[in-house]
């Protein structure tokens, strides 16, 4: 999950922090979310597609919440500051952002079908 979010494996310290946070929050996991979580553990490569579909299909999903908690933990660590604080960009970076947006839209469309298949 950490590698998916920021492109590198987080340290054990951060993973432990994540585990502690999830234990502490003790959310109810629905049957469908449990299916998604099980699928993700077995197929970690699919996290991007699943994550892309959830904002529209299941915005309050426990899966989405857990990714979100990891995101916050990564942000609140000096190791990943440069991934979150604003940085000076070349004006042409705008086109990269447009490309990121396009990819996200495609992932969302594919993901929405994928998620339905996983949880049926």
């Amino acid at each position, binding site marked *: 999950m950490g590698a998916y979010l920021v492109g590198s494996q987080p340290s054990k310290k951060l993973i432990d922090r994540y585990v502690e946070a999830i234990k502490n929050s003790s959310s109810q996991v629905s049957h469908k979310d449990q299916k998604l979580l099980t699928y993700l553990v077995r197929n970690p490569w699919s996290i991007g597609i699943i994550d892309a579909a959830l904002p529209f299909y299941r915005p309050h999903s426990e899966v989405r919440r857990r990714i979100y908690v990891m995101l916050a933990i990564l942000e609140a660590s000096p190791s990943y500051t440069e991934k979150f*604080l*604003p940085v000076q960009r070349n004006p042409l970076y*705008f086109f990269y952002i447009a490309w990121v947006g396009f990819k996200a839209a495609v992932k969302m469309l594919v993901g929405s079908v994928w998620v339905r298949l996983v949880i049926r």
Partner: protein
Amino acid sequence: MKIIEYLVVGSGCSGAVAAETLVNKGARVTMLDTGIEKSGGDTKVPDKDFLSIRKTDDQQYKYLIGSKAAGVGWGDVGKGEQITPPRKHILQDVEKYIPIDSNTFSPLESLGYGGLGIGWGLQCWEYSQADIKAAGLDTKKMSRGYQVVADRIGISATDDDAGRYTIGDLKNYQPSPAMDRNHQYILSKYAAKKTAINQAGFYLGRTPLSLITKDKDRRKAYAYQDMDFYSDNGQSAWRPWMTVNQLKKQPNFEYLGGYLVTGFKELDDHTEVYALNLKDQSTTTFRCRRLVLATSALGSGRIVLRSLGSSSDRLPLLCNPYSYVPCVQPRFLGQAAEPKKLGFTQLSLFMDKQGDNQGASVASLYSYQSLMLFRIIRHVPLDFKDARVLMQYLTSSLVIMGIHHPDTASKQKYLQLNTAQTPTGDILKIGYKLNKRDAETWQAREKEFMAVMRKMGTYGLKRVDPGMGASIHYAGTLPYSTTKKRFSLHKSGRLHGTRSIYIADSSGFQYLPAPGLTFSLMANAHNVAESAFLNE
């Protein structure tokens, strides 16, 4: 049992001011308060700026998100999303001791030491003369009250285009803090298009803040650390607990924390005040000559209903309708983080089509940096990985516009106390519904705000409605009245039907203007305390 001379209930903005006024007059004052204080490792914030912390502090997670990520909220957008781990005690035990039953209204209340003032946004707008009268207040007394409070807490402001909407005739204020680039840009655009914008009925100016830019007594000038949502290092931002801490050093002031006042009974020569001891849940009875309630409009409404009413009684309720609009300034896309930033609002935009300073709506403008990216990423309808990339690029250009509208009473805005299995034996039921005409008017105004912001190079992305109660501005539960009707106040703040019970918060306001009410309720608290001293 001893009889307390003046019993002030509550340590928030109005309680702190009322107590200080009485103490300064030589009265013997006891403050009774729930007073929950912050505790634990998540509350220790270093005296450093935000960017340095982010780059170097390995322990930052504790106060930025909470040691077990308890500060990482989830669910629907609601009030208090900006309450960070060091200020979580604002919300502690609220659901247990002052529960709410409502599908239409979600207020924020606090049992903390300093009340909601712990996390207050520091805006210190004066109401206009017309709005003061509409609220049922005295214009001369309010003018004096504003100055007294300003002199005590320290205010930074600018007399500019919006001066008649912000500082009125206030004197002795310090210079406003330096603006960041986002706000400088807006102000420069406003200056260039001022005539057209004013003709459209809009006026822009610096927001007066209870934030000092020059050293004052033991408090230090604002250091631009951009840690405003996490700490009060240097005490440049005024908080009510700072006043209460100073009062504790006075021989004629006593502070009793850990008590939730539940009710009162006025007897021949004194008043009995009943309080729940939060430690052991026992009930303690205090006796006082004069009682001054400063527990917020909801809190005072609760206590009065419990003491004098029944479950069939309803009190009115006022709350500023509120929505916010995240905006983008394309000029600042992809810029580096700015070292000198403020978490507080820097500019206020007033909409006053008639030009009579009555019934205006107001937008507060904020930059976004220190509340972290994750809080805003979750509202982006993309996968988190791509949302992070997008928002990292966008944040430097982000301005949040929070829009407040005035409110008037109606039968569909009320509170009522019902029996329930709670520590106090009851629960506050709140109903709140805007009438169709008001709802349409506010939405139309918000579109106009967005149009004016576009003229100033700042483009709204979408309007977010966080729900009724999210403004955290409540008033009017015991409105001023000249007819001595039940559950109303004399102009002095004394509860009609009583000899010595005063309400020093916003309960009495008959009308709630759009500019934040905190400075006005503090000015009023000073006036009510003076009246209580004279037993008017």
